């Protein structure tokens, strides 16, 4: 008991049951309130003017005509936003990304913002703002940006991570290397070496709800922000520091979130909307259009990757090498020390037990929007390259691809490619489950093929602060500060109910605003249920301590003689035999006279959310005359540690797989020669529709995380990692072409088929 996070293998009463989510009724009746569903009295409409150029010097912004337009209440340009970042490069990048400072760095970069009495007036005002640009040469492709003749985007960018420090600036901002052993010696040992290069195009999280907020700043320096976000505490501290406000004086209330997948872990329009409100002295509501979401929020990196894998005839991989080139948009990584290629490099060969491995990540800037996290950020692209190459090696060895992976799978004691030595992990178990899955034995028809692939993600914990309050009727309020993106309020209520020994229905979970709890880290890194769940356990245990004390008062016996069992206080010892157990409700009812409200609280940093592995099986059918590909069957096998709410765990697995399928087949940012995004809408940025997908079968494995009382691991992200390669491998098995460019769209597949015919 107490605050020991160790796994205890306890028997559960309510954990693992498939209860209804507390936000369900609101969401099916249209009552749930999202970012755009809130209005403040007297609010203005905020709109943004965005650069039509991929790269341009801003010579002049003339706002005088717009200012004179009746109904315009405030106009903001970078001149209104002093740089308060104090040498913090990451913060300065955020500031500059929110509003261009002297240069527009990508198509869609905000250059000015307007607050007006209504949308029509605000639109008119945008047209009256005159921006004089000097168009500069641009580069949008990651490989092109690395060439010596490429236009250098930042004159002060000198590659970090290599010695000696370069003497000239370039678009390569970081090099990071991971691995161990001697790869050259490993390749020399190999009977067979396969080398292949890959490209993946840029994708977007594609949440259906655009970014939206209502900001209200008062002349006394206090302010409020209603916003759709994965992390309202983080939004609070970032916005406050950029605008020179006291953190505690800005209250951020999170709306229901209409999807984020990483894209709502970073600020975009929010600091500027606050600035507009401050200048206008009125509340301002800003909602991004879909076009703005695509052009000016945070998509993934597009990448270019080289893989080299050597193996012995017996199937042992002797060496593995990866070079990863990822573009991060026009800025360095989203947070300090976190360049995207570096993360990709860390995950590259994490599924395997390798004596000799090396991965080098090259992080590059281009004239595209600032890259943000997207579900297991950076991992799907490198997994596509590695897992495709693994299949090629298996094929050349004449080995079954599953057996080949099982032979080389990482296990407890394996040194991971990113450095540490693994504890108990689940990659081997997912592979065995795949091998034994009926899906693997289902018959395939002509032009159909089956592929499988593995995936890895870290998962994180982080700062957490949680309250549990017991009302006088015995109902329980669980107040958490981690945004519920996928049903965590239900999972957390289950956890509180389990600890207290009461029915799930007796607990109601809420997401608090930033004024009501201490800092909670953002819901990212699959941490929501893991970390707030841990804090809920400890808060409930603290409340149980109080309940026992109150029972002791009611009975007038020492607290040591009171135990908590199955939702009731029990007096232990023969001398208390006559005392009937007191239920939680009975103790709560008496609380006003036994010491006041009963509560539990926990603040902690539950780290180590347990690394997570998945293996996916996919069947596709390819039309060899058009290159059109359909996924006809799909199975996800993933280690969840312990599934608190199995249905919602399945939901995470299915959702991630579907996003991966879209990434694999059709989703991509398409930039024209002019450096402008050509498909900023859901018509031409093709996320899967219902008729594109089959049912997605799931198999949850439960290999307990030793560092969570219930064994929970993060589950939200890993499922997006394997699909790209699983589909690529399936296409290869269906029609014999090895696709090395994602998305594997019909024109690319048809071209590959023609080249195959030609040879």
């Amino acid at each position, binding site marked *: 008991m107490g605050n020991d996070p160790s796994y205890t293998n306890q028997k559960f009463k309510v954990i693992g049951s*498939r209860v*209804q*989510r507390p*936000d*369900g*009724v*609101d*969401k*099916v*009746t*249209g*009552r*749930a*309130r*999202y970012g*755009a*569903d809130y209005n403040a009295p007297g609010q203005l409409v905020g709109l943004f003017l965005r650069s039509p150029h991929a790269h341009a010097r801003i010579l002049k912004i003339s706002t005088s005509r717009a200012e004179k337009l009746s109904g315009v209440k405030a106009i903001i340009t970078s001149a209104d936003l002093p740089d308060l970042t104090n040498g913090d490069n990451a913060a300065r990048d955020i500031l500059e990304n929110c509003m261009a400072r002297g240069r527009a760095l990508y198509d869609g970069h905000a250059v000015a913002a307007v607050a007006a009495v209504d949308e*029509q007036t605000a639109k008119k005002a945008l047209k009256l703002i005159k921006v004089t640009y000097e168009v500069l040469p641009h580069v949008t492709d990651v490989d092109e940006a690395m060439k010596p003749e490429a236009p250098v985007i930042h004159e002060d960018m000198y590659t970090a991570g290599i010695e000696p420090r370069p003497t000239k600036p370039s678009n390569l901002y970081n090099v990071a290397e991971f691995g161990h052993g001697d790869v050259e010696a490993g390749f020399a040992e190999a009977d067979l070496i396969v080398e292949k290069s890959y490209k993946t195009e840029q994708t977007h*999280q*594609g*949440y*259906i*709800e*655009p970014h939206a907020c209502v900001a209200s700043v008062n002349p006394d320096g206090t302010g409020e922000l209603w916003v759709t976000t994965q992390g309202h505490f983080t939004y609070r501290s970032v916005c406050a520091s950029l605008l020179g406000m006291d953190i505690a004086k800005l209250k951020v209330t999170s709306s*229901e*979130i*209409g*999807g*984020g*997948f990483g894209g709502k872990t970073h600020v975009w329009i929010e600091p500027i909307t606050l600035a507009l409100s401050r200048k206008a002295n009125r509340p301002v509501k800003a*909602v991004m*259009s*879909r076009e703005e979401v695509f052009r000016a929020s945070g998509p993934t990196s597009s990448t270019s990757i080289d893989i080299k894998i050597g193996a012995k005839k017996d199937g042992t991989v002797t060496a593995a090498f990866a070079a990863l080139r990822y573009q991060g948009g026009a800025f360095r990584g989203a947070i300090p020390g976190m360049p995207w290629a570096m993360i990709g490099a860390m995950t590259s060969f994490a599924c395997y037990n390798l004596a000799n491995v090396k991965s080098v990540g090259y992080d590059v800037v281009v004239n595209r929007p600032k890259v943000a996290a997207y579900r297991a950020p950076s991992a799907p692209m490198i997994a596509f390259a590695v897992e495709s190459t693994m299949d090629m090696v298996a094929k050349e060895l004449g080995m079954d691809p599953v057996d080949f992976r099982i032979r080389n799978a990482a296990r407890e004691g394996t040194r991971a490619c990113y450095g540490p030595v693994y504890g108990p992990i689940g990659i081997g178990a997912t592979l065995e489950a795949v091998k034994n899955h009926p899906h693997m034995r289902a018959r395939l028809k002509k032009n159909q093929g089956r592929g499988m692939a593995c995936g890895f993600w870290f998962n994180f914990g982080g700062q957490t602060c949680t309250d549990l309050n017991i009302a006088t009727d015995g109902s329980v309020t669980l107040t958490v500060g981690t945004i519920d*993106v*996928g*049903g965590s309020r239900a999972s957390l209520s289950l956890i509180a109910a389990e600890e207290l020994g009461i029915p799930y229905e007796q607990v109601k979970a809420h997401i608090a605003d930033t004024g009501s709890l201490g800092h909670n880290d953002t819901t990212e890194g699959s941490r929501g249920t893991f970390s707030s769940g841990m804090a809920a356990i400890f808060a409930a245990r603290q409340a149980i301590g109080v309940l026992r004390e109150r029972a002791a008062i009611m009975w007038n016996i020492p607290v040591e003689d009171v135990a908590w069992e199955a939702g009731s206080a029990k007096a232990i010892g023969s001398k208390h035999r006559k005392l009937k157990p007191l239920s939680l409700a009975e103790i709560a009812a008496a609380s006003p006279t036994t010491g006041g409200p009963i509560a539990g609280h926990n603040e902690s940093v539950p780290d180590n959310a347990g690394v997570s592995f998945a293996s996916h099986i996919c069947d596709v059918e390819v039309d060899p005359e058009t290159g059109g590909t359909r996924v006809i069957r799909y199975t996800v096998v993933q280690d969840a540690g312990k599934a608190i709410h199995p*249905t*919602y765990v*399945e*939901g995470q697995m*299915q*959702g991630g*797989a*579907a*996003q991966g*399928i879209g990434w694999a087949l059709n989703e991509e940012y398409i930039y024209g020669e002019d450096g402008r995004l050509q498909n900023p*809408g*859901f*018509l031409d940025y093709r*996320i*899967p*529709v*219902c*008729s594109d*997908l089959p*049912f*997605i079968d799931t198999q949850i494995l439960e290999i307990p995380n030793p560092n969570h009382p219930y064994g929970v691991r993060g589950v939200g992200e890993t499922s997006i990692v394997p699909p790209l390669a699983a589909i690529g491998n399936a296409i290869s098995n269906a029609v014999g072409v090895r696709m090395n460019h994602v998305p594997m769209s019909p024109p690319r597949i048809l071209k590959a088929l023609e080249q195959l015919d030609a040879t």
Partner: protein
Amino acid sequence: MSAVLVSTTINDDAVQFACPPEESLLSVLRNRLGLIGAKEGCSTGDCGACSVTLDGRLVCSCLVLGVEAQGREIATIEGMAVDGKLHPLQENFIDHAALQCGICTPGFLMAARVLLERNPDPTESEIRYALAGNLCRCTGYDKIVHAVQASAKEMRKLDKKKSPRKKA
């Protein structure tokens, strides 16, 4: 830009509103009438989050002008539960976890309701195509299709109970 006065029926209630002629029905519902259940995901008819019915047909309210509602009948998600009782589709969406973030849910429910009114026993493929105008990014559609299948089954049973003679 003078506003036009429009008389219409929304969820069986007579409603009047005034709006400029270029304003979309979606904006009228959300910003003038407080019916926020229809969501704006794209404003170009590509996501279906703003789905409502207009004279019984499923439409994207972002692609209808408010003034077109004159004399028509509109149904929105707010009218789906009757007398405090959830529609079987609403029940099943919760039971089957057919929603995660829930932003697409009102649109899916409207589309699924129209589907089942026209076709009480749809195949999986018919369900998938009927819902293809509604984007969901959280679920991979798996549990949505299951929820619609379960609702169809339940509603057929209810229908039989209501009119037992139909069977013969």
